[in-house]
């Protein structure tokens, strides 16, 4: 259920013709497919992050961005699962941090991204929120943690007054990303 395109292949089901509706692939292949999908999502996330970084900022607030790379994390959450989403996000943050070459930026994006992904995974598996709501919650948590870490690293208490603005900005950005993620996931499940 969680793998991409499960029903598309008809490889050699010699192992069993039972009706348990398990994957026709052997275990190893399933794992390889998962790793492949994760790698692809990491690469996509990295690409989105770089593209976003080279565009002029949409909202003139430092630290407030659209969070295009979160799309990869959301798709991983929907199609692979919470741990995989966490893995995709951490790898993307690490690689992105290495590419940008700023350790503080890496620390901030990794901690904020991890917190947001854990939170999103928790909300996603509650039967309450839509993917858009999950994305908004993730954006809000990301921005809050981002500011908290920045406050801790920079040690300038005045930065605290910036919190309400970052929280408010997270609503539209999270909604946009959530909407796109919903479209992507319906498209992916239709094209099976």
């Amino acid at each position, binding site marked *: 259920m969680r793998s991409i395109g499960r029903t598309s292949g008809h490889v050699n089901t010699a192992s069993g013709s039972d009706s348990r509706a398990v994957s026709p692939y052997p275990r190893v292949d399933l794992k390889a497919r998962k790793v492949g999908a994760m790698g692809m999502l990491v690469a996509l996330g990295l690409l989105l992050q770089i593209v976003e970084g080279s565009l002029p900022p949409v909202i003139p607030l430092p630290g407030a961005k659209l969070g295009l790379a979160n799309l990869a994390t959301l798709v991983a959450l*929907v199609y692979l699962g919470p741990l995989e989403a966490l893995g995709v996000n951490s790898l993307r943050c690490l690689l992105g941090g290495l590419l940008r070459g700023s350790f503080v930026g890496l620390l901030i994006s990794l901690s904020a991204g991890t917190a947001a992904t854990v939170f999103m995974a928790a909300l996603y598996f509650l039967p*309450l929120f839509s993917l858009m*709501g999950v994305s*908004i*919650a993730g954006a809000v948590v990301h921005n809050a943690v981002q500011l908290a870490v920045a406050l801790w690293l920079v040690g300038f208490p005045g930065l605290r*007054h910036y919190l*309400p*603005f970052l929280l408010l900005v997270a*609503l539209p950005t999270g909604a946009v990303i959530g909407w796109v993620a*919903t479209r992507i996931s319906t498209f992916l499940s239709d094209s099976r």
Partner: protein
Amino acid sequence: MKKRSGRRWTWADSLLVATVIALSVFLLAQDMSRSHQGHTGSLSVRVNGAETMRLDLSGRREVGVRGWQGDSVFEIRDGSVRMVESACPDKLCVRSGWISRPGESIVCLPNRVVLEIKASEGGPDAVNR
């Protein structure tokens, strides 16, 4: 999985958004009310370079000061100050309007009167400088 990702906007989503908005508005309101409660600091009045008065910015009143060419009258109102009248030819000080934040000032060169808001200790702007 398909069901979850395809789910429409729910009441829980609305609740989430409403909570975040309420929280931000609350934080903003708190910040604003704090900056209005004497956190802004005090008003320093200087004539010809020497400080002649140090006033706090609460309440409403008009204060006059004797300058180089005549009297300057400024108004204090809930943390803000403006020049109301000045015995100077150009009235630039009157036209500069209200000031309220630490570090802001109104300068009347002809009358040699300077109104400057000084930060009180511990305010965010005091650290900033």
